[in-house]
Each structure stands twice: as structure tokens, then as C-alpha cells.
């Protein structure tokens, strides 16, 4: 059975109130990779061709090039969450906000709602605030 990437979102949600910087950074990484894999599967439905090198920035840029506003929003949202993931994994400076995990959880919810709408599917159950 394939791994359900949403498990990453659930783990991050469960740890959202943990004030430790290391946990918050880990949460940001897991939220991002949930969104990334969801975005990648959506892009593949739209005939996305994997680039030879990094697919992160390329993926969000590709979404941003669409004329459909909902698809563009996926690119903008994904890019914001990717930005947090870069800081969490590559920047030693303390995270900018104590609320960043909650903020990105909301962004991830918005992202999955947009994907579900675009696919004509029922969205996953919202995680409790």
C-alpha cells in the first residue's frame, strides 16, 4: 500500500503547539512535503514533465504560468510554503514567527481545498483548528 503523504500533515498538526524550534522546523518541512507531493500529483494530471534538475521551484513556477486562477493560486501558495521550508532546513537564524506553523497549516488546507475543487473531488476532512 502506498504511503499517504497527508500523514505528514497530520503529524505536523499534532505537533503544532510544541514551542521547540526544532519541532517547528520539522513541522514546516513535513507540511511542505505534503503540499509538494499533492501539487506534483496535480501537475502530473495536467501533463507536467519532470525537469532534469530541481523540481521544487520549477513546479511552483509552472503552476504560476497557468491562466486558470485556481491553478495559479496553487503556485503562489506552494511557493510560500516552500519558502518556509527553505528557512527551516537551511537558515540558522530563528524562525520569524511563533505562529508560522499554524499559518502554514492553514495554507496547506487552502491548497488541498483548491486541488480537490480543481479535481472535482470531495476535500479531505479538515484537521481541528
Amino acid at each position: 500500500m502506498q504511503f499517504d503523504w497527508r500523514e505528514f500533515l497530520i503529524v505536523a498538526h499534532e505537533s503544532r503547539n510544541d514551542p521547540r524550534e526544532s519541532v517547528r522546523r520539522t513541522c514546516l518541512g513535513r507540511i511542505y512535503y505534503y503540499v509538494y507531493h499533492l501539487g506534483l500529483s496535480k501537475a502530473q494530471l495536467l501533463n507536467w514533465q519532470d525537469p532534469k534538475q530541481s523540481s521544487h521551484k520549477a513546479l511552483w513556477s509552472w503552476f504560476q504560468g497557468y491562466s486558470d486562477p485556481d491553478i495559479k493560486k496553487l503556485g503562489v501558495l506552494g511557493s510560500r510554503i516552500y519558502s518556509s521550508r527553505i528557512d527551516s532546513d537551511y537558515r540558522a537564524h530563528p524562525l520569524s514567527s511563533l505562529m508560522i506553523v499554524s499559518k502554514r497549516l492553514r495554507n496547506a488546507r487552502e491548497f488541498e481545498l483548491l486541488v480537490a475543487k480543481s479535481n472535482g473531488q470531495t476535500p479531505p476532512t479538515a484537521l481541528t483548528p
Partner: protein
Amino acid sequence: MVNQLATAFDTPQYRPSREKPVINIFPFPLHKLAMCSSPLLEKQAGFARNWISELDSLQQHYLILDSDHTIIKILQEEPNLYELLMEAVKPLEDVFGTSRIIQIRVQLADEDYMLRVAVQLPSNFEGEPEHKLNSFHEAWWLDNCHRSGGTLVFDYELRDAI
């Protein structure tokens, strides 16, 4: 890319006059390009741009946290970014107000780099910042994001930093 172009222009007819003072503040050969004196060449090569002047203009609106060299190099690699950043000032001010500090910093990952543009907001900011950012997206960014090649990201930061 910059190095390749600099090599291409390093021929006698394009070499700068020795009478001009040369101050190389860049560790890469940008100074060679900046001193090209042929208007036609500059026009053809898209180098009729004054990078330092553009950087100065950006600094009037943004607090840039990285070195001039780093930002100029990125502006050269992605020439659309300067115009985008200048155009973004008004819609950002329309939504967040005119007195906000707006930071720009480079984010580096193993395989990517991005320019993060973040409006600095007080923790007691009136209004929901996420809604404000969405207003900015709807008003301007969604119509222009395709021009940044995925490099620009606009966000806000609340000043509750540790």
C-alpha cells in the same frame, strides 16, 4: 552566463577606455560590462541598464538584507525581477499601508534560490494579515507571478520574533 557574456565582449573594439577610472567592486567581471561604451552593443545585448542605479531604486522602497553584489547578480540573471519589484511597491502599500518596512532577502537551498519579499507587521497589526496578503495576490500578484520564473515570493512577517 555573466562570465560568458563578459568574455564575448572582451575584444579590442569593446574594451573600455583606459582614461576611465576603473573601480571593480565585484568579484566577477561585471565591471567589464558596465564600461562598454557602444550604445548599439549595449542595446543589442540588453546591457543599457545601470545595475547600481536599479539597486539604489530598490533600496528606496525595500530593506535589502543581502550584499549589493548578490542582489545585482540575481537581477542580471533574471532581468524581469527589477521591474516586478518596482511595480509591486504600490499594490503592497495599497494593502499594507505606506509606512511598512518591506524586507528582501535571498533564500538558498541546495538546488534553488528564491527572493523572499516580506512586509514587516507589528504583532498588534489591525486586520487579518493573511486576508491582506490575499488581497495583494488578487489585486496584482496573480496577474504578474508568471513573470518571476518562480523566484519571487511575497509574504508578511509578524514582529514576534524570538
